[in-house]
């Protein structure tokens, strides 16, 4: 009996083995877990969000399909348009600053100096601190009554009254961008530093022999060699900044008078406290085209081969 069973088992195993020998089956099986995860945790929520944007779903009540009604109504809504403007402004200014300062920091860190490892670790701190904690810290730093910056400046006698960091639209926008830049620089700097260290020193030596000065070495060796990683980091950075929520929500809640509402915070405000799930989802969905555009731009715009090799695009 036992032998018989065993033999049966072996025979079945062999057919399974034969099946697994098939490349197509095997590759399908190997991709299944990853595909399943993507489907459940990425495609489904995204699809659901997009679907909700086409309905008038409210919290606690399923909606009906209303086509583009949410979008038509949003594009006539001054608060939504303001949030789009704010988001683009916030993302572009913060990204430029983060990259400028991040690159500079990376170049500095790339030099040999004492306590190199320690300093590199320290630089990461702003990025490691949970966003909400740093947001609360900035909330105090920008407080109308208790701001440390204002306090110091008043004590020094440079100003008479406390600075209204968050009470005026443009000051509030600038303050939030500064907080975002402070948080984002380490990510950019460390990634670019990694990129810098992959550049072979012999390239610089060759350039130096050819008589290139520091600027030329930076312009014609560093920048092109850094471009692939730059484009990846840029993509991530733009995505993170564009969808920022915590900083805004903790520091201003979108105030004063919606001057700092980003699309993400407005989507939340309308969908959850406001109960208008459909409209909130539509605002979130409206972010997708911007994100796709940003991704495509950094991929195709910055990753062109010729440019990377120091040539010109045709």
């Amino acid at each position, binding site marked *: 009996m036992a032998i018989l069973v065993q033999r049966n088992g072996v025979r079945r195993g062999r057919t399974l083995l034969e099946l697994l020998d098939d490349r197509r089956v095997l590759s399908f099986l190997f991709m299944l877990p990853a595909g399943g995860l993507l489907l459940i945790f990425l495609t489904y929520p995204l699809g659901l969000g997009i679907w909700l944007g086409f309905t008038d779903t409210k919290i606690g009540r399923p909606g009906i399909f209303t086509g583009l009604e949410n979008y038509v109504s949003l594009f006539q809504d001054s608060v939504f348009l303001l949030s789009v403007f704010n988001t683009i402004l916030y993302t572009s200014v913060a990204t430029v600053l983060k990259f400028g300062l991040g690159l500079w920091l990376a170049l500095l860190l790339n030099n040999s100096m004492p306590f190199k490892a320690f300093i590199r670790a320290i630089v990461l701190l702003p990025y490691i601190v949970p966003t909400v904690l740093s947001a609360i810290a900035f909330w105090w730093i920008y407080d109308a009554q208790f701001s440390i910056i204002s306090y110091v400046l008043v004590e020094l006698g440079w100003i008479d009254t406390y600075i209204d960091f968050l009470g005026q639209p443009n000051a509030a926008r600038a303050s939030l961008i500064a907080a975002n830049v402070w948080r984002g620089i380490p990510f950019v700097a460390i990634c670019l530093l990694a990129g810098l260290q992959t550049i072979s020193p012999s390239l610089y030596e060759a350039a130096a022999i050819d008589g290139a000065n520091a600027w030329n070495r930076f312009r014609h060796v560093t920048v092109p060699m850094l471009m692939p990683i730059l484009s990846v980091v840029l993509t991530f950075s733009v995505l993170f900044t564009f969808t920022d929520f915590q900083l805004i929500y903790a520091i*201003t*809640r979108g105030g004063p008078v919606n001057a700092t509402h980003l699309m993400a915070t407005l989507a939340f405000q309308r969908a959850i406290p*406001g109960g208008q799930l459909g409209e909130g989802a539509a605002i979130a969905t409206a972010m997708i085209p911007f994100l796709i555009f940003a991704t495509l731009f950094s991929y195709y715009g910055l990753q062109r081969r010729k440019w990377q090799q120091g040539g010109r695009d045709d």
Partner: protein
Amino acid sequence: MINITRRDTLKIGAGAAAGATLFGTGALGAEAKWESKPEKGASLRVLRPAKFVQGDETLWLENTKKFEAQTGVKVRVDSEGWEDLRPKSAVAANVGKGPDIVYGWYDDAHQYPEKLVDVTDVATYLGNKYGGWFDVCKKYGMRRNRWISVPLGAPGSKINYRISWVKEAGFDSVPRDLPGFLKLCQALKAKGHPAGFALGNAVGDANGWCHWLVWSHGGKMVDDKDNVVINSPQTVAALEYVKELYATFIPGTLSWLDPSNNKAFLDGQVGLTGNGISIYYAAKTSQDPAIRRIADDMDHAQYPIGPVGRPTEVNLVVPAMIFKYSKFPNAAKDYIRFMMEEEQYAPWATASIGYFSHPLAAYDKLPIWTADPKHTPYRDTMRTMQWTSYSGSLGYASAGVLADFVMVNMVASVCSGSKSPKDAAAEAQKRAERYYKV
């Protein structure tokens, strides 16, 4: 869900026959009877706002233990941060799973009425026994003549002021009329003790005083038939008034969120603000003698009454809701009832130092309101307050308008000088109409 049970009919009859106060002789106890028993082997999950003062949670849990001991029902009480409570209960309503009872916010019950257990029997019983519900409770608790939630109470907001500074400004107390109030604030500012009211997107504080301001002048977001009427001469008058009032504020209030005025008041930077009893409590229990002196030097007052001739305040309201997916609705009803009974409610209200103002008339006599005369102004919070979407209905549109800070933004844009009163009112009208059009 309109099915009046035999017991309801009996109780409604009993209620009509009786003018109830438990605090009198207690003779009425026999008339308002609660007979419903929890299901056998029931267990409950309760979600409530995180404690604001320690006494609130301590007594709540003690009362819950008492309930467990008396009924044998197991109860688990979870607390949720104030901001997260609303999304959590909304999600519970949506997915049909979660706590049996939620002590939520404002008009939550009107966002998903069909997901809630009818609690008319509990509310009728409590109303009969404790002198009746205040009008605003019926607005929040009832939908089409049935109760869908039982109001627990309201964290009230009143004028907080420094006694000595108001005297210094030449006033004995906070004037009850708008022109007098403005004069007081101007005098305070002149003495270096400005007023301060939140104008950022502060859910509690900013909504509170901005609604009072507009309502006191006769302006309102919607009329009885839910037509948007915010763009009115009365609203413009309110906005003209606030321009002058804003000039007496400490700089920076446009960015103030809920905690900002507490900090500024306790630091002695503002002489007058609008807040719950929390500032007083924090000052009174502080380790720092300098801050304890602020408690001695501060008092509370009602918000002034405008041309409409009656109080026009709005406050947070905490409704108790039972979700239909609960397996033990009777146990849940019994829990809600139990916590509202005098034996539990009175010690709880005392321990929370009057942070929650009561919804039932008989509780006017709770000792907490007279234990310290500075508590007394908070006593009438629910007797006089209006609901957030006054004078329209509560529902999706009103919740949307409130969450979008339409009223607050209107006032703030006038204060910041970015819009004239007329433009601000017109803009608010447009924004509110987006919600009310459907």
